[in-house]
């Protein structure tokens, strides 16, 4: 607009410059006015320009900050991704199969990465270790503690079969290598598959459940959480697992996760659910519990890792052994010790052991006296196999055999005073099945395990 007026002035002066001094004055006045207008506008513009500069600086700052935030979020996400990766190494999705146990695990890490830890490991000497732990907190720091704990458990379980001792050592190690407010809760069991006995220690972890239609027990011991205290005072207990028992371990995430009603899933609901479903195999139990859990929490995203592990004893390959002795009655104890110590370790109980001992003595003495006729050059061969359902013992001699159906029943009133035949009566009374081969020089006796129907 200023420029237009100015050009209008030049145009006019081009035509009338000499002839009208009056006009010149007017033009001069207009020019002066225009100049002052320009100055005034310039004065107005200056602060706006300042403001603009400020705004531009602010915008740059905002851009810088948002970029930084993006980077940091990326870094955090990256850290979480790293943490998640490590967690997946600590908790392998597929654990090796171990003969003698059947188990299933569900592990659902939360988005923020918690500190759940689990493992089932073969310790040798027929022992299996069962570990479930939960490091407090989330994110990378928690992952670091999980790493320390994981390595400590891996190290201290070597050549050590007492869960209490292992937990004490892990406690010391975690205390030494983590910050003072970092700790974990943990349950560690050492299950001897030969005896079905599990020793365990519970370091302030939610109590695992042992349940069967006729049993419900919660596994707890003395002892504080792991990695916090100089003297955690761990206790150790032992439980015998029967083939029908299910052992269920889990972490706090399972019972503490809230549903839309702001109520946690809770121990009580879990316990009731387990009681109702404990005859299912481990994989089924894990699946059913997780369905029930999902039903409770609905669309709510859990803020903790969730781990559940179910385990039961599985039929093992039969244990088989063979003992050969010359026909000398005083060697009988060798056979007895070998077989009976195995059965005792399996918790056959006093009555069953008494019965097997009696039948075994009768069968071996028969083989030595009546089969081999005390001929020391002739051998007695005892083979036995033990499964989780029964024990089968066969005793064979090198004699000519006999026909058991031809032996008169000494419990008939008329036969009570007969010298022979009572051994056979006792074998049949104390074993579940007694049969001879056709030749009659080998007897096979079967004893059901006390827990088999």
């Amino acid at each position, binding site marked *: 607009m200023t420029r237009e007026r100015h050009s209008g002035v030049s145009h006019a002066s081009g035509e009338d410059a000499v002839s009208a001094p009056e006009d010149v004055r007017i033009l001069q006045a207009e020019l002066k006015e225009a100049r002052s207008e320009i100055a005034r506008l310039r004065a107005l513009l200056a602060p706006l320009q300042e403001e603009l500069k400020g705004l531009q600086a602010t915008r740059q700052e905002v851009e810088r900050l948002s970029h930084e935030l993006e980077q940091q979020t990326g870094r955090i996400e990256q850290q979480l991704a790293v943490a998640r990766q490590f967690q997946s190494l600590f908790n392998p999705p597929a654990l090796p199969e171990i003969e003698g146990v059947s188990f299933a695990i569900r592990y659902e890490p939360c988005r923020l990465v918690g500190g759940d830890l689990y493992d089932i490991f073969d310790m040798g*000497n027929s022992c299996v270790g069962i570990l479930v732990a939960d490091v407090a907190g989330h994110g990378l720091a928690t992952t670091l503690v999980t790493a320390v704990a994981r390595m400590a458990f891996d190290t201290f379980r070597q050549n050590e079969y007492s869960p209490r001792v292992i937990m004490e050592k892990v406690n010391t190690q975690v205390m030494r290598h983590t910050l003072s407010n970092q700790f974990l809760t943990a349950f560690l069991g050492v299950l001897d598959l030969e005896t079905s006995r599990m020793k365990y220690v519970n370091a302030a972890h939610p109590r695992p459940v042992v349940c069967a239609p006729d049993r419900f027990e919660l596994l707890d011991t003395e002892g504080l959480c792991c990695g916090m205290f100089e003297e955690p005072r761990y206790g150790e207990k032992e439980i015998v697992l029967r083939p029908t028992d299910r052992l269920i371990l889990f972490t706090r995430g399972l019972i503490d996760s809230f549903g839309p009603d702001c109520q946690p899933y809770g121990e009580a609901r879990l316990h009731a659910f387990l009681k109702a479903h404990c005859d299912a195999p481990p994989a089924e139990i894990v699946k059913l519990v997780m369905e029930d859990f999902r039903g409770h929490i609905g669309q709510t995203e859990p803020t903790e890792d969730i781990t559940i592990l179910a385990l039961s004893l599985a039929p093992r390959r039969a244990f088989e052994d063979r003992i050969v002795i010359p026909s000398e009655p005083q060697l009988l104890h060798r056979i007895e010790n070998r077989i009976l110590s195995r059965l005792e370790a399996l918790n056959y109980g006093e009555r069953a052991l008494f019965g097997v001992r009696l039948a075994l003595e009768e069968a071996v003495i028969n083989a030595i006296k009546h089969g081999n006729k005390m001929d020391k050059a002739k051998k007695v061969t005892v083979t036995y196999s033990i499964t989780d359902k029964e024990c089968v013992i066969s005793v064979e001699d090198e004699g000519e055999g006999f026909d058991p159906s031809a032996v008169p029943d000494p419990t008939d009133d008329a036969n*009570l005073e007969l*010298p022979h035949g*009572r051994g056979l009566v006792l074998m049949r009374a104390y074993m579940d099945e007694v049969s001879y081969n056709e030749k009659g020089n080998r007897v096979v006796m079967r004893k059901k395990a006390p827990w088999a129907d």
Partner: protein
Amino acid sequence: MGRLTVFEAKVKPQTPFTVRSEMRGDAAIVTASGHIAEMEAERLGKEINQRIEEGARVIVLDLGDVTFVTSACLGVLMGAHKRLRDSGGLRVARPQPLVRQILEITKLIRLFGAYDSVEDALQAR
């Protein structure tokens, strides 16, 4: 197996066998303890036969401390019972439940009885 002893799993050692006897009138009271199988039955038989040869007309066998018997032991008792059949026979006192069960299964409890005490067995003649 070469298995380390992780959990104690030992068969209870058998209580050692002992036997002694004393005469009371024409009865011999034979007191045994422990596990009586093949070899022990022979020693028990010797003890009983010696008393019979010394004139015992009744044998009271105190099984209170006997934990286990086999058919070999029952055979020895039956032998003694037959020898003394006309004078009073052999009587069993204080059998533990598992041993008593063996006497029941073989029905020998009908011949030897199963008295609550040595005195009861002596008086039963």
